[in-house]
């Protein structure tokens, strides 16, 4: 807990200010903050709970069908991380910039309060990473595909009163590291904002039993199996729907 006055020192001509930064990282989970404030009254309280376990070994399995040059390599990592963090800030003064960001294996969410003369905010974040599965399909020469499949959840809960700029951002990515959800918001003025964002990605190792015949079975999926005249070699190997 931090509480006090940011005030000039007698006999010094520099404007009084305070700044602080912190980074917290565990596995693929991170929490960052930056604060810079000019003269004023400032109080902040931070409570962080972190539990990370990286003892388990990473399992790797390689498979290559006979006669094929395509490898499927899978990594399974069970290094769970649970990070819960609460933070409050109260400031009245000339100006404060207060930024924070939470990251969880590619997903990120944060808020920036800039040039605020009067700021009060409460933020709670819960980051959970259960496991990480990575699947790479490749030949000896090239990588055909790579899927990063973490099982994770990110909950970000904020309540604020701001008098300057309030920026809220979030980003969620998929297994190919492509952005699937993006939010950018800016509020300039006096605002009371409450917001809760929850991003969840659950990887389940399900095998589609028809995948190996996806060409034929997929293409004939709308047909009644009873009406399919035959499943001879032409239908199977030439992908023809009878």
């Amino acid at each position, binding site marked *: 807990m931090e509480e006090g006055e940011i005030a000039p020192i007698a006999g010094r001509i520099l404007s009084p200010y305070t700044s602080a930064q912190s980074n917290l990282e565990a596995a693929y989970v991170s929490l960052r903050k930056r604060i810079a404030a000019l003269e004023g009254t400032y109080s902040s309280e931070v409570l962080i709970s972190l539990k990370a376990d990286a003892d388990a070994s990473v399992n790797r399995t390689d498979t290559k069908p006979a006669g094929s040059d395509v490898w499927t390599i899978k990594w399974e990592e069970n290094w769970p991380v649970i990070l819960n963090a609460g933070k409050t800030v109260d400031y009245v003064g000339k100006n404060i910039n207060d930024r924070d960001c939470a990251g969880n294996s590619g997903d990120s969410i944060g808020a920036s309060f800039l040039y605020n003369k009067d700021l009060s905010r409460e933020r709670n974040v819960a980051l959970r990473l259960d496991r990480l599965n990575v699947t790479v399909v490749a030949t000896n020469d090239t990588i055909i595909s790579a899927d990063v499949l973490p099982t994770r959840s990110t909950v970000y809960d904020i309540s604020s009163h701001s008098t300057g700029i309030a920026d809220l951002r979030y980003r969620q990515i998929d297994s190919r590291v492509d952005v699937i959800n993006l939010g950018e918001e800016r509020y300039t*003025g006096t605002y009371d904002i409450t917001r809760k964002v929850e991003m969840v990605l659950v990887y389940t190792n399900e095998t589609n039993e028809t995948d190996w015949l996806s060409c034929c079975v997929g293409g004939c999926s709308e047909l009644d199996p009873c009406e399919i005249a035959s499943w001879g070699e032409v239908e199977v190997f030439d992908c023809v729907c009878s």
Partner: protein
Amino acid sequence: MTDCKSLSGSGDANINQVLYGSGFGADYVANYALETFGASRIEGGGSASLKPDSCHVSKSVSTIGSSETFSELYGTLGGDFAGVASGVLDGDLTTYQSFATDQSVSAIQNVHADGEEAVAYSEAEDAKGNWAGTNAVMEDGTMKSVQTAMTGNSASASQYSEMMAEHGYATSYAQDVDGNTAWAFAHMGDYDGMGNLKTDQGAEAGNSASAGQHSEIEADYGLVESLAWDADGNSAWTGTYVEDFDGEGSLVTYQEAEAGNSAFADQHSEVDGDRGGARSEAEDADGNRVQTDVEMENGIFETFQAAGTVDDGTVAAQLTFAEAERGMAYSWAWDDVGNFAEVGAGMEGGTLTTLQEAVAGNSADAFQYSNIEGDFAWAYCEAEKPNDGYYARVENLVIRNASLSLRGSAFANFSEATASQRTWAEGDFNRMRANSSTKSLEFVGNGSCESDLRAWTNVTGEDVEAIILKCVVG
């Protein structure tokens, strides 16, 4: 992913959100944007629930005293698009918007705006290219609109709107993948800024386009229109206007427009004002044209009108009742080789009831049944075959204490032009005329007269015939 938010405050706001779903065979994208400047008060909220194959997004915002606020929410799924947007300049805006994907996309908005200018619109387009939209625009006043846009296998848009403003517009449009197009439009203007406009609208596309409208206008000036044209080149239009410089002008209309294998436009109007009129017209792909009109000054009229194309030609019709200082109704047909037929009826200081129809195909044909009472009554039927110089016209004119009932027709085709009118007329002054290409007959008198007037010209050399059945003079 879920996202819940509420906010309140003042100042500027700029929000951009892009929401995706992919990988489960139903990839979608949803976009939300809000921009506001200088609002003295903002309140808002919203939620989004996203799954890989579906999403539900809803946003609401209320701004007071902003110099500009604009909010839009739209998205796509499998090539289908739906979106809503609304904005205001120098005023207040309250809007609720939502977007959802299931089998397809849909978007809804509920808007209330008060300001210098405001707009609200909704659009939907499916993957095949069927397209529909609806919008409402207002200047200097207040507006509320509830709008929907959606696509399934076809696009669709609807709207309910109310306005009180200096100017207001409400439009719906639909176009299917074949190019069949329908359009409905309502416009109101009022110099005192107290004009009212109320519409229900609709638009569809699909295998054929369609547009609808129920409108009520009370303003200095009002205009409603419906238009349809099909991919084959057939087109139809119907419209009604009113002017009243006391700001008490009124206009009530139901309108429809279709397209498809043929275009068609309908309307029902009730007009009360200093001046008003209604017209329906149609033209087929061969160039056959028809039109029916009613005009009125200082009074009221009620009319049912229709215009469209049929299998081998085009047709326009009206059933009108007018009570006014002046009233006029006429219909004409013009076929693709230039044959022309027209019927008309007019009055001053009384009432006019008329049923008229004009048809153009391989010939031009028009007829009317009319009853007129007033200071002045006038009716005519005219046919012309200009390529061969054939012409025929019959006419009745009654002045003062006039009463005129008639059944008349005009017809022109490849071999003749004929005009006929069977009338009963009574008044202080009666004049009946029958004219052909080379001859003319005229009867003048007073009192009452029952007459059968005919005029024609044809290839046999027959020309004009006028038959006066019975007249009582004095």
